[in-house]
């Protein structure tokens, strides 16, 4: 990236790829369209902010999966277990540092959350590396076997969680200062959701910068487009695969921590439960697209929130409806990834 001048002139000559604005406009359009149905403005703001936070948490959990799929063409149905594992890994930190959670200090509480995230990402990253080596690597190239074998991995890993931490749900309290909500007039914003939005945005921006502004990101994007060519140019695509898989697992662990504190209970099946949403999101976004995953997460979460408020009975199937409508509009998802 030293020769920026050459770079820019080169892009000027190439026909620029058009930014696809339509799906991006969908989110504000949807939010505005929901306003008259919701009625009161303050309720609308509350719902929108809550939906954004929910969307961020889903994005954290889904981003790893879609990244792995985009690069490696591997669909990991066992992704949910990394979410559960990340959630359970918080116990490693919460156990010895219970005092930090009870302390009335925002600094200590956030530090605790940070430590939980680090622990979770470390655990899921290591397990992800093992998972890739033992479970996934022998079945590169065959979707059918991938689905089956990762489901098998899911069963075994869930049972292992049962064996280690027991089968009954474990309550985990939110750190003291993250409980409750900010109230501005009629608008209520839960504190934890603000944290979730913050972390989600940081991860999203970080991923975008990494993918679009660094050499590794360039290689990953090139690998998504054409892995054989990247390999022919002398890069070890295998190593790239493994690191992306580990990163994807670690992201799931991060999402798992956020999700665990949101639910405030741990169960081994919690990852698999949320996987339904995750799959909807990555289908809506376009398999393999990180940006699509982000837009999809927010879209799905907002729709779920609005519909849940306006017509609670419909909320259950609203996600499916969103997915069906998007697929009818764009069968490959909002941002189709070119190659496949």
């Amino acid at each position, binding site marked *: 990236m030293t020769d920026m001048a050459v770079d820019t002139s080169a892009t000027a000559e190439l026909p620029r790829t058009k930014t696809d604005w339509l799906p991006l406009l969908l989110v504000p359009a949807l939010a505005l369209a929901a306003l008259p149905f919701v009625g009161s403005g303050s309720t609308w703001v509350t719902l929108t902010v809550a939906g954004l936070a929910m969307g961020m948490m889903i994005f954290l959990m889904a981003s790893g999966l879609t990244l792995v799929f985009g690069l490696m063409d591997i669909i990991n149905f066992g992704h949910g277990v990394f979410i559960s594992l990340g959630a359970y890994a918080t116990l490693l930190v919460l156990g010895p540092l219970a005092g930090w959670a009870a302390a009335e200090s925002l600094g200590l509480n956030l530090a605790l959350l940070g430590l939980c995230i680090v622990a979770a990402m470390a655990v899921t990253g290591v397990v992800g590396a093992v998972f890739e080596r033992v479970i996934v690597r022998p079945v590169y190239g065959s979707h059918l076997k991938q689905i*089956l074998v990762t*489901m098998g991995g899911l069963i075994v890993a869930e049972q292992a969680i049962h064996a280690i931490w027991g089968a009954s749900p474990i309550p985990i309290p939110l750190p003291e200062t993250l409980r409750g909500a900010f109230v501005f007039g009629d608008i209520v914003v839960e504190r934890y959701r603000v944290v979730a939005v913050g972390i989600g945005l940081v991860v999203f921006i970080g991923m975008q910068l990494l993918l679009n502004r660094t050499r590794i990101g360039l290689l990953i994007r090139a690998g998504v487009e054409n892995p054989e060519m990247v390999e022919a140019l002398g890069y070890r695509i295998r190593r790239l695969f493994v690191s992306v898989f580990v990163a994807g697992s670690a992201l799931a662990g991060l999402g798992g921590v956020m999700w665990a504190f949101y639910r405030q209970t741990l169960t081994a099946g919690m990852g698999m439960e949320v996987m339904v949403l995750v799959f909807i999101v990555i289908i809506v976004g376009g398999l393999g697209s990180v940006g699509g995953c982000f837009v999809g997460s927010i879209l799905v979460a907002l729709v779920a929130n609005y519909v849940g408020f306006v017509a609670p009975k419909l909320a259950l199937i609203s996600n499916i409806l969103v997915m069906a409508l998007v697929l009818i509009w764009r069968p*490959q998802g909002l941002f189709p990834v070119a190659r496949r």
Partner: protein
Amino acid sequence: MSMSSALTLPPDETRRSGFFSRILSSDPPRSWVLSLILLAILLVLAATPFLFSGSQPLSTAAKICVFIVLVASYDLLLGYSGIVSFAHTMFFGIGGYGIAIALEQIEPTWASAGIGLVAALALSAVLAAAIGLLSLRVRAIFFSMITLAVASAVAVLASQMSEITGGEDGLSFQLPFELRPAFRPLEDQLFGVTVNGRILAYYLIFFVALFVFLLLLRIVNSPFGRVLQAIRENEFRAEALGYRVVAYRTAASVLSALAATVAGALMALWLRYNGPDTTLSFSIMIDILLMVVIGGMGTMYGAVIGATLFVLAQSYLQVLMAAGSEALEGIPILPILIHPDRWLLWLGALFIISVYAFPGGIVGRLRQAKQ
């Protein structure tokens, strides 16, 4: 079309056309050991009411029959068409709820059972076709994710609409008079057993299961089944030969859904109850996957072996493991690993090994041993 299907038939299958061969749609087990095991399963299932006393063996046998249909219908999708559905329990549940709602809301007669079954079959067919057309036109992998999403939505829906489905509690209902334990068709005992409505219900399940299984065997060995296998092997080439991949796959998914619905109806008839846990839950979906893969994908007979093995393991393996766990008390780790609640861990490991090492499962293994 006729030419391509004639070409794909193995030569030894075209020659034979005896009675058994026709019943089995010219697709015999092709292994002595396998034939003997299948025969043993068939005979034991056929004679269970007279071989064992008590209600548990009969319930286990009925469950095996139901799961053979369910797993065989799943094999039509997974083994023969090469697509993974996670909505199979949804159709299983629709069948169960069809019977349960009809018998509970209308009246406990054969007519209302018929109405319930027909309504359930219609709903399953429409849903399966809609999911297939929506997702299979893009990529088969969409189908897996979309079926998972739809199935979980339906499961939540079923537990929420409690005024119709009974919610989490499910529905208990009365069977038609002829299937109740109080019904005695014979004056005397038969082979030392009093024949009652319960035994009749078992035989109803047994024969329907047998019929549906043979029907599925017929389907996979028909020209239609050959096309499905062609698509599984090479989607692009099948399309190039002029077969509409989406149409064939959707048809397979509808057929498989219909068979699963019948299985759900049988399950509800046997239990006289239907609820989310008995037919709709995701853990049953995982059980089906385990059965089909361990038994042998794409063999149909694998469904029989897998279902029998799994249901027996579910009923009796835990007892065995409890004994083993107690025996190993004192040694570190080992008792935890064979704790009776960990039986799924071992089946999961067996599942992974099966996918890697024996893609044909037990049936494939037995057939190989012969050669």
